[in-house]
């Protein structure tokens, strides 16, 4: 069995974001980067499936600048076998359609049985790349999976719907699955596995000139609509102020 997993490197979402000088994207200065959280679940599921079947190969693909190699290395240390890094410093200028086309062009001849991607990236949140990749491959696609089971060459997944409800769906490979948070518990790479990963292949390839359908005009901070009263100070002071406000403005403290 051949398994594909797509990962993206994104900034830590707790960061303070500054805009780049053209107001097209955020400035990467002073940001810490990590693997997109949704993709960690995708990698974990791919590795678990490999462990279950015993004879699978897991290939990780990532499109991004030089630094994205760190996310790829993490995926290898988690148990993926080899990687393709589409090295693209202009990654943020590509729309989802173009990103998916790029990945498609590099994986279409690999004849994957199962591809796992995150449901969405934390920075752009487009939730498009996995589904588009499936459409280009002409594979079925199931999105937002929260449970995964592989038995007798058949896959059963649960899709997360709204309000705690799930849909139970069966499919046979080949298939693309997009992973929701909570699907599993992503492992931490162990030191021996980090060392082993250093020997695994990371094939660097050039991005292809694929068509963008969207034009990014600019990026900005959200318009401040809220008028939250901000309280700052030492904790005791804050407690007193908060109590006063709760007494004055709510009916919950008698």
């Amino acid at each position: 069995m051949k398994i594909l997993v797509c990962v993206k490197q994104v900034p830590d979402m707790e960061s303070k974001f500054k805009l780049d000088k053209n107001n097209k994207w955020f400035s990467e200065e002073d940001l810490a980067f990590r693997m997109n959280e949704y993709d960690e679940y995708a990698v974990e599921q791919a590795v678990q499936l490999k462990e279950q079947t015993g004879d699978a190969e897991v290939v990780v693909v990532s499109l991004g600048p030089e630094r994205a190699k760190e996310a790829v290395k993490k995926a290898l240390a988690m148990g993926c076998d080899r990687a393709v890094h589409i090295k693209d410093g202009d990654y943020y200028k590509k729309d989802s359609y173009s990103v998916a086309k790029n990945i498609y062009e590099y994986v279409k001849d690999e004849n994957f049985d199962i591809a796992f991607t995150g449901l969405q990236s934390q920075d752009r949140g487009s939730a498009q790349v996995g589904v588009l990749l499936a459409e280009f491959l002409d594979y079925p696609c199931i999105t937002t999976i929260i449970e995964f089971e592989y038995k007798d060459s058949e896959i059963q997944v649960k899709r997360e719907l709204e309000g705690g409800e799930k849909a139970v769906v069966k499919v046979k490979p080949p298939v693309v699955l997009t992973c929701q948070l909570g699907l599993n518990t992503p492992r931490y790479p162990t030191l021996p596995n980090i060392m082993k990963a250093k020997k695994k292949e990371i094939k660097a390839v050039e991005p292809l000139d694929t068509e963008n359908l969207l034009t990014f005009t600019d990026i900005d901070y959200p318009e401040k609509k809220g008028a939250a009263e901000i309280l700052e100070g030492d904790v005791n002071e804050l407690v007193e102020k908060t109590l006063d406000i709760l007494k004055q403005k709510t009916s919950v403290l008698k």
Partner: protein
Amino acid sequence: MKLLLVAEYKSKKFLESNYELIAFADKLKADYVMFGVGDETDLPKCEGKIYLADSEKAGEYNPSLHKKLIAEVMEKEKADFIVLPHTSYGWDLAPRLSAELAFPQVTEVVDVDDDNFILPACNGKLWRKVSTGGKGIITIQGGAFNPENDYEGTPEVINLEVPSVESKIQFEGYEKAEAVGVDLTKAEIIVSAGRGVGKKENVENVRKLAEALGGELGASRPVVDSEWVEHSHQVGTTGQTVAPKLYVACGISGAIQHLAGMKKSDFILAVNTDKDAPIAEVADVLVVADVNQFAPALAEKISSK
């Protein structure tokens, strides 16, 4: 400008949230037609045309069929944009349509500015503007475009033939949410823990504050995914939608999905170390503090009175 609004039906019922699609069309001052897999006995109240595929024949989850039917409606109507709700239905279907029609897709639109669509990036800390060149597929964020008036009228129904489309995906059924341990929708006070509490043990700080206030414990998604708190306490799109008299958000930065589930609370008190966190957009008061210091101190003060 003409829009094709893809209404979401669930178990033959037209969802109330679909009126937000009409509100979006109104905001753009655009004409619209609708598409839905549903039942003629339960139609939206609006004017215009609705292309309806019988839900008995179309089934509940068959994206290949929905894609084909919508492409067929597009042939006839030549709409400029297809608009879907940003839900598990909408975000599943939208990229399939984007691939089918080679239309650009914009996900989770929260506002429009002339011909540009605005969408959040990086957990809502930034807003991006994009242009689609006059055609596209849009998914709209729940609650971003609220209907100002009640709609009236009966749409003209155009029944669609449902072709047999082979689906490689087999839908087995729905699984209801587990019996809910706590009904947060009825709580008057909710104190919720977010990722900012740091670790599982620290949830106790939030739980004690909830007890001191006589309220229920709530939680954001990451806290539930980390198994620090059970799912039945989750507030947000995939949890419970609440509107208590007091909502205390402890260490919750304010992902859009969480805000959608609690922003109708009467009074929102947020405790966060980052005063620029998106929770400040909906909070009445934001206390800039470490929740693990502030929550126990507040709980103790309340209990001692």
